[in-house]
């Protein structure tokens, strides 16, 4: 254990968990909430793409890529703040 007191450890895990929950909520939004309104979104057409179709075919995928890289960098910041990042 990288010399953290129990209190520091709890604080570290609290921050990590918070980040986890934020990302999970966004994951639910892009995976389930937006697709649930596909019928309504399809009324809007941009560049030939009905929006509901576009979100499931491209929009949400872009969001996933961003979420994964964001998670990596945000978690890394938390690690550095608590001095538990690897050398």
């Amino acid at each position, binding site marked *: *254990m*990288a*010399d*953290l007191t129990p209190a520091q*450890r709890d604080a*570290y*895990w609290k921050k*990590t*968990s918070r*980040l*986890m929950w934020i*990302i*999970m909520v966004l*994951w639910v939004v*892009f*995976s*389930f909430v937006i*697709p*649930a309104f*596909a*019928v309504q979104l*399809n009324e809007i057409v*941009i*560049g*030939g*793409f*009905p929006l*509901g*179709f576009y979100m*499931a*075919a*491209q929009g*949400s*995928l*872009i969001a*996933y*890529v961003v*979420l*994964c*890289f964001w*998670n*990596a960098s945000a*978690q*890394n910041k938390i*690690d550095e703040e608590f*001095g*538990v*990042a*690897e050398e």
Partner: protein
Amino acid sequence: MAQAMAKSSFINNLGKIYAGYAGGFIFFVLVLAVLEQMGVSNRIIGYCFVFLTIGVYAYIGILSRTMELSEYYVAGRVVPPFFNGMATGADWMSAASFISMAGGLYLAGYGGLGYVLGWTGGYVLVGVLLAPYLRKFGQFTVPDFLGVRYEGNTARICGVVVLICASFTYIVAQCFGIGIITSRFLDIPFEVAIFVGLVGILVCSMLGGMRAVTWTQVAQYIILIIAYLTPVVWLSYKLYGNPIPELSYGQALTEIAQLEQKLGITKPHVGAYVDAAGKFSWVEFNNFWALVLTLMIGTASLPHILMRYFTTPNVRDARKSVGWSIFFIFLLYFTAPAYAAFAKLEVYRNVIGQKIAELPAWVQNWSQVGGLLTIKDNNGDGILQLGEFIINQDIIVLSMPEIAGLPYVISGLVAAGGLAAALSTADGLLLAIANALSHDIYYKMIDPKASTLRRLTVARVLLVGVAIIAAAVAGTRPAGIIQMVAWAFSLAAAGLFAPLVLGIWWKRTNAAGAISGMIVGFGVCAYYLVGTRYFDMPLWFGIRNISSALFGLPLAFLVTWAVSLMTAQPSKEMQAFVDSIRIPKGELAWVKGVTHE
């Protein structure tokens, strides 16, 4: 020492090596294109693509042979995140993604997007919930984690059983895909073709284990992505003068909608949650999100994917590597709907309504591959109607270059890509199964004193055995590729997700809870799958059996939670061990009496 030097210079020069390799491959394709123009036959071009690419993989496989355990099981834990991302991409994108997904989109329209979402979004779960912690744990296999966290061989065996059921279903589907490609492009019977493909699988993995599979997978990713993007970019440019298919296929969607009206098709391509009559349907709606959920959770539970993150140098790189993985996967997945749209447009425009006697040669060629394309003149007017043209989703991608009249060299390229996708996934799966048997069953349970040489020999013998059984089962053509693969996801999701996630995120989870959760979750899922598939059991709430995990998964969580609370909490040592997994830096606090590498 000299070996260590050679190794680090290899890792430092990866970029150059693979850039040179990609350049060489493009050059090879161009040479074949010239040869085609000079009159070399299609058959020879097909042979060149299949044998040359397999030859390259075999070469890498032989170069990467190893007699070290950590090299064999986790590629020495030196794989940089960027390249691990590529390898994961190839490991991940299988015959189902490459060969069948665009075909599924072609047939199902919006409904097929469930696969696109489901097979990408799971990486968010992998990156946030699992990969970094499993990397910190730092052993060889996923059942290793279960065995240590849930203190004993019962949990380990449950893990191995789920792993084998899921991965075996999955690998059979890959052998099936390999059979389709080799039989079409080498012009040999399907049953023989499967075994030719088998040789291709084994040369990559047998000598070098994870190390060889990693470096061939990077090579396979490069070929499969070039092969997938080339025909779509070409078509996009041909149709709309815009080389970016992801932007231009909006126009194709508009044209398809117009042709649908003309041809009297009631179910629009872009229509969300509609039944065959084009009306909104709750059954379709529920099946869509059930499939998305199943595939995403399955992604985060499949051992051949999770074990790729055991190979990065550290925890930070494991996280970053998940980002690169989804990026490389995304490149193919956001192109697939364009592929489907262009194929549909070509068929509606240039195939339907033609005189059957005058259909081009590709119809003839593909009709011969195991009933995957049938044309029947039902009303006897000699003109092809929409209902008389039945194409299987598994050949849309492979046949599209011919349908659209592109040169045959593009067909060969696509075949090479499909083969790369199927081989790379088959290798990853094969390794996951053989490692679970050789490491978790043989070494951990049967003979813990086995020497390195003996362990590696057992691993290789099992690898060959499993591969032969998988190919033999695939020869019986048990179901379509995409269905088999989706079953694998259901089984993995219902059996493994709860014990893995709760083991890390909820310290109170104990062995009794996790084991009963796994048994109930996996049992319910398997019962539903087998019952509905083979015994005419009625569907529950109209949910199709490709989303079987929908019932097993919540039960697995519920049972794990309830049983854990009803029994004693894990020991103080175990809780300290979980704490040490959660923090990237520092040693693991091993529980006394637990053996580890």
